[in-house]
């Protein structure tokens, strides 16, 4: 077939959370450059099933780059070589004969469940500890009754694109989730609705982040480069600024 490739895959296999894992090598052939990375893994899994082997477990859901489920460390880069999610990464980013190493996110706070699947409920708990606004129930208020300056609204919308995939943690040499935290803090902190709980939120979310075992930020910038949504590094500055304000307020 024209435009197809043969690849060598080195994949982390681990039967369950407590089991000892290791790298296994597989060959796949006839891979079209138009396939997504996950479709390539589907081909491998069909192959494994035919051979009576356990398929490779990996997280995926929407396959259109918005759910944040897929979480693959591909050749040492979170979500691979392009600025996108693993599901939206296409095989045209690779060439025939390549060896591709696929690993799960590595973080104390993201324990491996099986193979390439990690448990990211640490992020859920960070959100639970403050990543929300409290609003009374009832009919939705008139949107224009709460004016938001355009620049602040745009910044909030831009960072609200965070899908919580965990690529920032995976890419960070310190295993820090500061970009995720910063995105949530900035998203809610820029809008009028986020103000009443602003400083309570940051203290609680940062404390939860620390308690989950994530590392501290050293402003290296690998997170922003790995982020499939292009969340900029200045959200971490905002995070630090808000925490500083919280200290001053005696929280």
């Amino acid at each position, binding site marked *: 077939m024209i435009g197809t490739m043969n690849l060598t895959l080195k994949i982390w296999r681990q039967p369950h959370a407590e089991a000892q894992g290791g790298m296994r090598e597989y060959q796949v052939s006839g891979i079209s450059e138009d396939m997504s990375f996950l479709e390539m893994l589907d081909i491998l899994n069909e192959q494994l099933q035919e051979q009576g082997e356990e398929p490779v477990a990996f997280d995926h859901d929407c396959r259109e780059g918005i759910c944040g489920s897929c979480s693959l460390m591909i050749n040492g880069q979170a979500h691979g070589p392009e600025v996108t999610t693993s599901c939206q990464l296409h095989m045209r980013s690779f060439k025939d004969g390549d060896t591709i190493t696929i690993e799960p996110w590595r973080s*104390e706070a993201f324990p491996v469940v099986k193979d390439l699947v990690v448990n990211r409920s640490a992020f859920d708990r960070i959100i639970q*500890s403050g990543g929300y606004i409290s609003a009374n129930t009832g009919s939705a208020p008139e949107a224009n009754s709460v004016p938001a300056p355009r620049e602040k609204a745009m910044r909030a919308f831009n960072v609200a694109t965070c899908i919580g995939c965990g690529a920032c943690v995976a890419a960070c040499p310190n295993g820090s989730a500061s970009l995720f935290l910063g995105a949530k803090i900035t998203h809610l902190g820029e809008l009028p609705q986020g103000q009443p709980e602003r400083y309570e939120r940051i203290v609680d979310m940062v404390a939860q982040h620390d308690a989950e075992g994530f590392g501290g930020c050293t402003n290296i910038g690998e997170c922003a480069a790995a982020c499939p949504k292009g969340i*900029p590094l200045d959200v971490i500055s905002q995070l630090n600024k808000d925490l500083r304000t919280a200290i001053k307020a005696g929280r």
Partner: protein
Amino acid sequence: MATPTLVRGARATQSTITLKIAMAVSGILFILFVLAHMYGNLKVFSGEEAFNSYAEHLRTIGAPIFPRTGVLWILRVGLIASLIVHVACAVTLARRAGRARPVQYQVKRNVNSAFSSRTMRWGGATILMFLIWHLLNFTIVKINPTGGETENPYRLLVDNFGVWWMTIIYLVAMAALALHLHHGTWSSLQTLGLTNSPLARQRAKLAGWVVAVVVAGGFSLVPLSVLVGITK
């Protein structure tokens, strides 16, 4: 694995960000110190008398209100305190970062980080070792490798940098300092929350370059001028 429970009674001052802020503040004090120290060293180019009177003046600042070396000791105590804070926070955060990734990647590529940003910990340790040597060399013991005068600051300096391996030690240390300042300057501004826009971020990174080049370059002028024979 962390316990899956929510933290209660969280305090802002007990967070990792507070440790980072302490590192940023102590780091900025060091930047101010090395700038002043570098400027003072350039007095070498005004000759032996000017340099030695500057060294003496450092001991008599604030006189007669303060006793001899009084102000100098206040500054020294401040620097020692900053050093303890800076190193203690760095060690705490480095150990934490080590625990945050118990299983290493088989393949890991760093695509967007400066070399200086990934060498902060080893670079910091290098600078600390150098600092100990430097204090023994010029302040505490006053080592003159040529066996010459030790109580004449200008002669001590020129004799030291007349020895090639001593010059190499100092130039290597300045390279380590330049790397540390390149990332440290930008990082401290980001940690203090002063880089909230792409423009501010760009300026902070530029500040890192300027501080690194000015400080390490300015310091290096002195041993280099001895090496090429301008200062003797």
